[in-house]
């Protein structure tokens, strides 16, 4: 379709979606910098999209839909600001926002408004839940209603949370800037937000959140090309997400051991693994976790997994980022690598950590290892204990199934 003739609704929808995917974030990010008005920036882009839906079917899809969107949003912003009697120099600044296209990219990524926006949304002076909500709303462009649904709260509650976050940015003087100090820490803060979005999508099986997190990960890899941990996080998410079709079958979660590996997405595994094959300057927890996921992804079955490599990676992870849950996972890997009795010894030493006291995963892992060691009676006792401690029905059902299997054998 070209300018002049009309266009079908389907073509318009597709062209608009593409243009928004390409330009929405740049327009919003540049308008926030020039006007300091977050709501205005988001509103004028929505207005421009609505206008496209009205005019494109009649006039045809413009030759450069993304540029049309930028120009329309900018004009609308100037109108609104003029009505609000904003100073002349600010208007000039808005008018100067260029029709950014892919061949017009800032040579220095630190000068990119999108990066400024990401760092501001993930500023440590905002509560973590506010950072997550703001990033999904302003960077990803999700609706307040969709974010509320993903985090099991009402649209009104989520709207309040977003409003409080935007107010704090204005009132507390949170700068719209890529940090110059503590950059590594601040990047870590951004990655934590993205990974939280991803794991939330994992926990609730809300695939759209996991997809959104991966999209954010890709954006960050573009914006921060030298950050090893950013690349590692994208790899980790791709490798974990590649298992999604095998992970939940008929609404029930399937453990890694029992997943149908032919349903893993090979293209995503290849992409994730390729990201890991580059040299590391910084090797942080995401890189090690991604390596663990890559070892699993390349194994034809649980039995044929390179378990000694997994144990070594868990050791490395415990060195960088000690955590009782990692020690627990390491014990399970030791059980696969060196036998159930070695695994039990590792498990009991991990379980000494008071933070794991009364955790169902310890009892479940103990039950597994005991049954592998042929101690069925002891295994049943541990699994019954795990069932009592399990936090949700889903986990209880899984454990009950294991008890049934053990009784049947």
């Amino acid at each position, binding site marked *: 379709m070209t300018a002049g003739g009309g266009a079908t609704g389907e073509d318009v929808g597709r062209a608009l979606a593409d243009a928004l995917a390409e330009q929405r974030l740049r327009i919003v990010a540049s308008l926030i910098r020039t006007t300091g008005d977050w709501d205005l920036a988001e509103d004028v882009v929505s207005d421009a999209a609505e206008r496209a839906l009205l005019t494109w079917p009649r006039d045809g899809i413009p030759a450069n839909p993304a540029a049309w969107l930028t120009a329309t949003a900018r004009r609308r912003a100037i109108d609104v600001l003029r009505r609000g009697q904003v100073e002349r120099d600010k208007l000039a600044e808005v008018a100067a926002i260029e029709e950014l296209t892919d061949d017009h990219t800032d040579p220095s990524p630190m000068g990119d408004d999108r990066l400024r926006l990401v760092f501001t949304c993930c500023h440590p002076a905002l509560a973590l839940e506010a950072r997550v909500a703001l990033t999904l709303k302003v960077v990803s462009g999700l609706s307040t209603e969709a974010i509320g649904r993903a985090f099991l709260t009402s649209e009104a509650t989520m709207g309040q949370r977003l409003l409080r976050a935007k107010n704090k940015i204005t009132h507390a003087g949170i*700068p719209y800037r890529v*940090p110059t100090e503590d950059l590594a820490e601040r990047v870590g803060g951004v990655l934590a937000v993205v990974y939280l979005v991803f794991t939330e999508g994992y926990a609730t099986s809300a695939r759209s959140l996991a997809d959104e997190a991966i999209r954010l990960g890709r954006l960050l890899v573009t914006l921060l090309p030298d950050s090893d941990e950013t690349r590692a996080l994208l790899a980790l998410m791709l490798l974990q997400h590649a298992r999604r079709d095998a992970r939940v079958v008929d609404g029930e979660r399937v453990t890694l051991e029992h997943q149908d590996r032919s349903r893993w997405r090979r293209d995503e595994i290849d992409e994730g693994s390729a990201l890991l094959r580059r040299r590391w300057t910084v090797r942080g927890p995401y890189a090690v976790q991604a390596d663990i996921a890559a070892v699993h992804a390349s194994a034809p079955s649980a039995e044929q997994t390179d378990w000694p490599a997994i144990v070594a990676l868990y050791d490395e992870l415990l060195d960088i980022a000690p955590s009782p849950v990692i020690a627990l996972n390491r014990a399970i890997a030791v059980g696969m690598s060196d036998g159930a009795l070695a695994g039990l010894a590792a498990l009991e030493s991990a379980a000494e950590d008071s933070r794991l006291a009364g955790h169902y995963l310890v009892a479940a892992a103990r039950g597994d290892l005991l049954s592998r060691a042929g101690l069925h009676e002891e295994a049943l006792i541990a699994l019954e204990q795990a069932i009592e401690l399990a936090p949700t029905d889903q986990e209880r059902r899984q454990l009950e199934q294991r008890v049934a299997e053990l009784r049947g054998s």
Partner: protein
Amino acid sequence: MKYMMLVVSDPEAADRPADPAVDEVEDWVSRNDASGKRVIGERLRPPESATTVRRRGGELLVTDGPFTESREWIAGFDILECEDLDEAIAIAATHPMVAAGTIELRPFWPFDEA
């Protein structure tokens, strides 16, 4: 932007390092006075010297001690004039009390602002 920087002490906190020496704080003060970032500030006497004043039902109530039961107390304050919150955080992070206590940054709220 102007920030009130409250220097909060919690003498009963576990694993609390010793209070910094006075001359360490004086160094911090002179550095930030020289850069023009610190407008004014003072150390405050502990809660034993505090007096609370309220008017309730027409009656003026003057009582001994601070208005909260909290074991934390404000040991001092500084007014900072900063470009933005990041600059205020950077300055607060160098205050000697940041390890032994807690520092709270509160932006000013001028009456003509929403």
